[in-house]
C-alpha cells in the first residue's frame, strides 16, 4: 500500500481532470464536487500514508517501500536508459501534504466563488490538472519528469490566468506569464542537459552520487553553470527579479487561481527545485550567494511596490514575490539551516498566503471590487473572513507564535549564522536588508487590512450588500489554523534533509554520539562551531525580528487608523511624491522591458524583414536574372553552334558522304565482288600483320 501512495496521489486529481472533460458541460456542479472529492482523496492518502512515516522514528518505511520497486524504463537510446520513478523523502512528503491540503481548500472555496460562471466545470478541470502537475513534480525522482511537470504547470497556469479569455488584459497576462517563465526554462533545460552530459543520468540519486564522489573536482565552473541555469528556471517560475513581471499580471485570473499559483503550486516549484538540487548549488561557493542576493533584492523590491498598490490582489501578489525572495535568501545562506529555513518558509507561507488570497476572494465576492479605496469597514459585515485574514496577516508579518514568525526567524538566523568565508559579510548584509523587508511586509499588510476592514465604509452601497457564506469561510478557517499550526513543523521530521546527509547536513536533533558516528573529527568540530554560532544568534535575533514585525504592524496601524497618522501621511505626501511615483509604477520595469526587449525584438524583426526583402530577395533575384542571362546565352549557343554547327553540319556531312559513297554502288555485281574480295584481302593482311 505504501508503494502505491505516490501513484494514488497522482491518480485522483488526474482522473478527476479527465472525467471533467466529459462531464463539465452537462453537469458542471457534479464535476466540481467530483474534482473536490478527488483532490481531497489525494490529501487523505498523503495524510494517512505519508504523515505517520514522516513523524515516526526510525527509518522511514515509505522511502524503503518505494525503493523496493525499481524505476521503470522509459526511453532507451544506445547504452543510456531514462528511468521513471518516484522519490518521496521528507521534503517531498511535506510538500505533498501542503499542496493537497491547500488545493483541497481552494477547490472547496471555488465551489462557492466560481458559481454561476459559464465555464464552471472547465475551471475545475484546470485547477485539478494544475494540482496534478505540481504533485507530479514533487514525487518525481529525476530532473526530466520534473521538467515535464514543470511545463505542464506552465500550461495550466496559462489556461487559468487567461480563464476570462474574452478580456484583453486576461489573455495578455496569460501570454506574459507563459513567455516570461519560458525565458527561465531555457536556462533550466540547458542546465538539465549539462548535468545529463556530465553524469549520464537525470535521476537525483545518480547526480548526487556524482557530486559526492567528487565528480565536479576541477570542474566547479560547470557546477556553477548548471546551478545558475536551474536557478534561471526557478527565477521564472518563482517570480524573482528580473523575471517577476508576470506574477502581478497573473491577478487577471480568478482569485482561487491566484491562491493556487501563489500558495500550493507554481511559485513553490522554483523554491522546491533549488531545495531539491541543494547539493549541486553547494559545489561552487559562488552559486548560493547569487541565489541569496537575487532573493534579497526581490524581497525589498517587491515589498516597496506592495506599499503603494491599491488593488487588494496586487498587494498580495507583490507580497508573494517578496516572500519568495525571503525563501531564496534563506536557501542562499547555505548549510542545513539555510535549507531548512527556506523549505520551512515555503510551507508556512503557502498556508497563510492561501488564506489571504481566499480571504481577498471572499472580500471581492462580498463587495465586487478589488480596489481597497472602495472598501472599508468590512470587519462587521464579514466577520469570519476578517478574523481569518487577521490571523494570516499576523502570520505573514511575523507576529510571535504564528507560523510566519518561526519561519522568518529561521531565515534571519540562517543568514546571520552562515558559514565563515568570503561571502559571510554579504549574507550579513542580506540579513539586515531582510529585517527591513520584514518590517515592510508587516507595514503594507496592515495598511491593506486597515483600508479593507477598518474605518468607515467608503462606498455605502457595496458595504450594505456585503455578505459571506459557509462554503467560502470553511476553507478560510482551516487555512487560518494551519497559518498558526504549520510553525510547529520545524520540530517534525519533515525538514530533515534525508538526501543531504551524505553532504554533511545533519539533523539538528542528533546527539553528539550519533554525530561522532558519521563525521570525521575535524568535520565534527566545524559542525559544533556552526551549531554554537546558530545558538548564539538565535537569542540576539529575537530582539531584532519581533520588533521588526510588530513595529511594522504598529506603523501601519498608526498611519492608517489614527487621526495623527492621517496628518503625518498628508505631510509626507509631497516630499515623498517622487518615490511613490516610482513605486506606483513598479519601478517602470514593464516600461523598461517594453522599451528594450519588446521594442528590441520588434526592431530586430524589422531589420530581418528588411534583410529578407533587400538582401535575401536580392540574392534570389540575382540568381533568377543570372538564370535568364544564362538562358539567353545558351539559346544563342544552341542556335548558332549546336543547330548550325552540329545538327546541320552532321546532316550536311552525311549528305556529302552519301554522295561520295553512292558511287561505289554502281549496279555492277562484279564491282561489289571486287570490293568484297579486296576488303577481305586487306583484312587478311591486317590480321597476318598483327598476329603473324
Amino acid at each position, binding site marked *: 500500500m505504501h508503494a502505491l501512495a505516490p501513484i494514488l496521489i497522482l491518480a485522483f486529481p488526474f482522473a478527476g481532470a479527465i472525467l471533467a472533460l466529459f462531464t463539465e458541460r452537462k453537469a458542471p456542479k457534479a464535476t466540481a464536487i467530483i474534482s473536490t472529492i478527488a483532490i481531497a482523496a489525494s490529501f487523505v492518502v498523503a495524510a494517512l500514508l505519508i504523515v505517520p512515516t514522516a513523524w515516526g522514528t526510525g527509518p522511514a518505511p515509505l522511502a524503503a517501500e518505494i525503493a523496493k520497486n525499481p524505476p521503470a524504463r522509459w526511453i532507451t537510446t544506445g547504452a543510456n536508459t531514462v528511468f521513471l520513478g518516484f522519490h518521496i523523502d521528507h521534503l517531498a512528503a511535506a510538500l505533498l501534504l501542503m499542496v493537497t491540503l491547500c488545493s483541497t481548500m481552494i477547490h472547496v472555496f471555488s465551489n462557492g466563488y466560481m458559481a454561476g460562471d459559464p465555464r464552471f466545470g472547465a475551471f475545475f478541470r484546470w485547477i485539478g490538472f494544475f494540482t496534478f502537475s505540481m504533485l507530479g513534480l514533487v514525487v518525481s525522482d529525476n530532473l526530466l519528469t520534473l521538467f515535464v511537470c514543470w511545463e505542464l504547470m506552465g500550461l495550466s497556469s496559462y489556461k487559468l490566468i487567461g480563464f476570462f479569455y474574452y478580456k484583453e488584459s486576461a489573455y495578455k497576462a496569460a501570454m506574459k506569464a507563459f513567455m516570461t517563465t519560458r525565458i527561465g526554462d531555457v536556462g533550466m533545460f540547458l542546465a538539465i542537459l549539462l548535468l545529463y552530459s556530465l553524469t549520464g543520468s537525470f535521476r537525483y540519486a545518480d547526480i548526487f552520487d556524482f557530486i559526492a564522489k567528487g565528480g565536479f573536482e576541477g570542474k566547479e565552473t560547470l557546477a556553477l553553470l548548471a546551478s545558475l541555469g536551474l536557478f534561471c528556471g526557478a527565477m521564472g517560475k518563482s517570480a524573482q527579479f528580473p523575471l517577476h513581471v508576470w506574477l502581478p499580471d497573473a491577478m487577471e485570473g480568478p482569485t482561487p487561481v491566484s491562491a493556487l499559483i501563489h500558495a500550493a503550486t507554481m511559485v513553490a516549484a522554483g523554491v522546491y527545485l533549488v531545495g531539491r538540487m541543494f547539493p549541486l548549488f553547494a559545489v561552487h561557493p559562488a552559486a548560493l550567494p547569487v541565489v541569496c542576493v537575487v532573493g534579497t533584492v526581490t524581497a525589498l523590491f517587491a515589498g516597496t511596490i506592495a506599499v503603494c498598490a491599491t488593488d487588494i490582489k496586487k498587494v498580495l501578489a507583490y507580497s508573494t514575490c517578496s516572500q519568495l525572495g525571503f525563501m531564496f535568501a534563506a536557501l542562499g545562506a547555505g548549510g542545513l539551516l539555510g535549507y531548512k529555513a527556506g523549505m520551512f518558509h515555503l510551507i508556512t507561507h503557502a498556508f497563510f498566503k492561501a488564506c489571504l488570497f481566499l480571504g481577498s476572494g471572499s472580500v471581492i465576492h462580498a463587495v465586487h471590487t478589488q480596489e481597497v479605496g472602495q472598501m472599508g469597514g468590512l470587519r462587521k459585515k464579514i466577520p469570519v473572513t476578517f478574523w481569518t485574514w487577521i490571523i494570516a496577516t499576523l502570520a505573514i508579518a511575523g507576529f510571535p507564535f504564528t507560523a510566519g514568525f518561526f519561519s522568518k526567524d529561521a531565515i534571519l538566523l540562517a543568514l546571520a549564522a552562515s558559514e565563515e568565508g568570503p561571502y559571510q559579510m554579504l549574507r550579513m548584509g542580506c540579513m539586515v536588508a531582510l529585517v527591513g523587508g520584514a518590517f515592510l511586509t508587516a507595514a503594507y499588510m496592515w495598511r491593506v487590512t486597515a483600508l479593507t476592514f477598518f474605518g468607515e465604509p467608503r462606498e455605502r452601497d457595496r458595504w450594505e450588500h456585503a455578505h459571506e457564506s459557509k462554503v467560502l469561510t470553511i476553507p478560510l478557517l482551516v487555512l487560518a489554523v494551519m497559518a498558526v499550526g504549520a510553525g510547529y513543523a520545524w520540530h517534525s521530521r519533515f525538514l530533515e534533509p534525508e538526501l543531504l546527509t551524505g553532504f554533511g547536513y545533519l539533523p539538528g536533533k542528533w546527539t553528539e554520539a550519533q554525530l561522532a558516528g558519521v563525521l570525521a573529527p575535524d568535520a565534527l568540530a566545524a559542525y559544533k562551531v556552526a551549531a554554537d554560532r546558530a545558538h548564539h544568534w538565535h537569542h540576539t535575533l529575537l530582539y531584532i525580528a519581533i520588533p521588526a514585525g510588530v513595529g511594522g504592524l504598529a506603523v501601519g496601524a498608526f498611519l492608517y487608523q489614527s487621526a495623527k497618522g492621517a496628518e503625518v501621511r498628508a505631510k509626507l505626501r509631497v516630499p515623498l511624491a517622487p518615490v511613490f511615483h516610482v513605486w506606483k509604477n513598479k519601478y517602470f520595469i514593464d516600461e523598461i522591458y517594453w522599451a528594450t526587449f519588446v521594442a528590441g525584438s520588434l526592431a530586430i524583426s524589422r531589420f530581418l524583414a528588411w534583410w529578407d526583402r533587400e538582401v535575401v530577395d536580392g540574392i534570389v533575384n540575382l540568381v533568377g536574372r543570372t538564370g535568364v542571362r544564362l538562358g539567353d546565352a545558351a539559346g544563342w549557343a544552341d542556335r548558332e553552334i549546336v543547330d548550325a554547327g552540329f545538327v546541320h553540319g552532321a546532316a550536311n556531312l552525311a549528305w556529302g558522304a552519301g554522295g561520295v*559513297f*553512292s*558511287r*561505289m*554502288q*554502281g*549496279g*555492277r*555485281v*562484279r564491282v561489289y*565482288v*571486287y570490293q568484297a*574480295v579486296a576488303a577481305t584481302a586487306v583484312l587478311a593482311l591486317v590480321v597476318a600483320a598483327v598476329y603473324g
Partner: protein
Amino acid sequence: MIPLLSAGNPILDIGLTHYLVLAAILFALGILAMVARRNAIGVLIGVELVLNAANLNLIAFGRYTDAGLRGPVFALFVILLAAAEAAIALALLLNLFERTGSVSLDDADELKG
C-alpha cells in the same frame, strides 16, 4: 634417291598442304566465276565453288589437326546453308526472270547509287 611414290616425299606425300592448295584453287575459280560471269546462274555456281572450297578446308583441318569432329560438323552446316542459299537464290532468279525476261546481272542495276 627418293622413290617417287614413297613416304617422306614432301611433294607427293599427301598432307594438309595439298588440301589447302586445292581449296585455294577452288576458291579462286569460284571468285573468278562470280566476277566474270554475267549469267546469274554462273555467279551462283561460283558461290557454290567458294563454299565448297571452305568445306574442303574445314574437313582437312579436321583430319590433320586436333580439331577432330568439329571440322566435318561445320562442313555439314555449310552444306545445309548452301542448300538453303541455293533455294533462295534460284527463287530470286525466277522472279527476276519473270520481271525482266533475262537472268543477266547487267540488266539488274536498278539499285545503283
